[in-house]
């Protein structure tokens, strides 16, 4: 144990002398959490809409007004022909075309039915999809208003309509920031922990100091512990900073118990650091380590359920996510921070990351060779 103490002393001295690491630990959580949640927002706004109005009636103007008043659309073209509107789409000035046929008002009043045409520029899938759906909803709503007015105007008997009201649990205002912040915080500590630990040992290989260590009677697990503990502490610092930042900027306070969160983070960090160490045992240069870590980080992030829901992934991709530690952290972060889950709700997650922690570190120790 005395050996570990000497190793820790050395490691902390080196860390505190390395201005880049200190800057990374302090600046990264603040900047990422301050900037990313605003960008990583699924709510689609500013959909560019081109309208082709062949009717020029009160109703058609009313419809256009209702659509633009919703706040989701920006009218970028009011054209006479579909071709003109299509040109706007081709020049990327419009995402949607709404075509109102001639005789819109007449048919609506007299024949009680009318068709509208909506064309969607599907290059930006999310924007087009959601934009199309918003537009459909707005038109349906408008239709009902007219129905009610026309019909009740004639018979004096209101229509029987089914109205759906919903409430959003755990995120009442459907604020994407509330949903994204815990996820981004999860990625953040994964990145900091993984990269720091992977690059650190490889740096010792590059500089040649590892030879001097390998020629001493130091035990392998002591050496690994000496590397794990400092970065574990740093990971916790980054996490704490992240929590403070998300409280200050977004007012997000964990619903659940902080102790539960820290318990999970403690074990999770060991598994991520173990992963970094394992990567470092395979690499000879920091460049190699960097590339390998990036490769895995991309997989971890995209298959972690941060940006896309795991439930909607194909079966094989779901299976892959089960081997992704980040997935469990993102789930637990959202459960504990937003839903207030207790320890009994995350037992399965705890067991899985514990297995990751043991497995990855065992592999790292096994694969770290003092003798080549």
């Amino acid at each position, binding site marked *: 144990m*005395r050996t570990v103490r*000497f190793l820790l002393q050395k490691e902390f001295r*080196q860390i505190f002398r390395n201005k880049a690491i200190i800057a990374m630990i302090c600046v990264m959580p603040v900047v990422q959490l301050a900037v990313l949640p605003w960008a990583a927002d699924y709510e689609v706004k500013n959909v560019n809409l081109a309208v082709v109005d062949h009717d020029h009636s009160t109703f058609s103007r009313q419809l256009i007004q209702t659509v633009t008043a919703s706040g989701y659309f920006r009218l970028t073209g009011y054209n006479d022909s579909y071709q003109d509107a299509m040109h706007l789409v081709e020049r990327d000035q419009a995402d949607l075309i709404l075509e109102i046929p001639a005789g819109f008002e007449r048919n609506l009043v007299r024949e009680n039915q009318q068709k509208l045409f909506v064309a969607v520029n599907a290059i930006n899938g999310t924007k087009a999809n959601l934009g199309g759906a918003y537009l459909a909803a707005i038109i349906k709503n408008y239709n009902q208003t007219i129905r009610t007015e026309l019909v009740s105007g004639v018979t004096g008997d209101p229509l029987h309509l089914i109205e759906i009201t919903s409430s959003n649990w755990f995120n009442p205002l459907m604020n994407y920031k509330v949903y994204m912040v815990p996820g981004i915080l999860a990625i953040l500590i994964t990145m900091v922990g993984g990269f720091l630990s992977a690059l650190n040992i490889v740096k010792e290989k590059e500089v040649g100091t590892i030879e001097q*260590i390998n*020629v001493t009677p130091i035990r392998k697990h002591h050496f690994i512990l000496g590397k794990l503990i400092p970065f574990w502490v740093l990971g916790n610092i980054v996490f704490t900073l992240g929590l403070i930042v998300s409280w200050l900027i977004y007012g997000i306070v964990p619903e659940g118990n902080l102790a539960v969160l820290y318990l999970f983070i403690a074990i999770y960090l060991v598994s991520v650091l173990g992963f970094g160490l394992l990567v470092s045992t395979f690499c000879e240069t920091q460049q190699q380590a960097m590339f390998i870590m990036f490769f895995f980080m991309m997989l971890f992030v995209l298959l972690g359920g941060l940006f896309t829901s795991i439930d909607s992934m194909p079966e094989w991709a779901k299976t892959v996510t089960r081997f992704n530690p980040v997935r469990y952290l993102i789930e637990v972060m959202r459960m504990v921070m937003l839903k207030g889950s207790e320890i009994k709700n995350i037992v399965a997650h705890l067991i899985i990351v514990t297995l990751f922690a043991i497995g990855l570190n065992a592999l790292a120790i096994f694969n770290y060779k003092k003798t080549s």
Partner: protein
Amino acid sequence: MQDVVIKTDKLTKRFGDFVATNAITLEVYKGEIFGFLGANGAGKTTAMRMLCGLSKPSSGNAVIAGYDVYRETEQIKKNIGYMSQKFSLYEDLTVLENIRFFGGIYGLTNQQIKTKSEELIARLGLEGEAKKLVGSLPLGWKQKLSFSVAVLHEPKIVFLDEPTGGVDPVTRRQFWDLIYAAAEQGVTIFVTTHYMDEAEYCNRISIMVDGKVEALDSPTQLKRNFKVSSMDEVFYQLARGAKRGD
């Protein structure tokens, strides 16, 4: 009969088809300064790394300080010091911190570390630099410091791989003074070098050519055997037949 501290028997290291070190058999005695010579690429570093327990031999045997090079590498490591070609103390730690760290992981007590640091710094005349980062020291001082750190835990043998490469003649002289001082304490010195004047300082030397030890004797005896007047010529006669090298 003198105590044998390094004994190798047909020690061989292969990397695929390439035989880096080919059946080396030699003995090194306690307190001796043993020069391990050879051209670039002759296999010196590979052989030395095997003796230090950093690299596993492909075949053959070796006993270092009484411990088997296959089974007891960790025991060997307690009893040897090693200074590699590449400077390998921590440049972002101070002189004192490096001494403290390496003393600590070799298991010295705090009291031992304290007295040894003071001695070492006084001997090297580094009083003014003790609290400076090692990275800021000139190369010559770094080399002297890393030798002193390598013998800090009083090992039986110290392995030096080209310790004076790129160092000026005055510093080289001072470096050899340190080596002599250590040898007088009974530490066996196993050193590789490209400087033939340094070879003359050794008690005995071996010369490796293409992975094999081609000559092994005292410098005086070698010169007599090859009927030449300097070690330069001995080395030249042996090494010019070499097929490897860079």
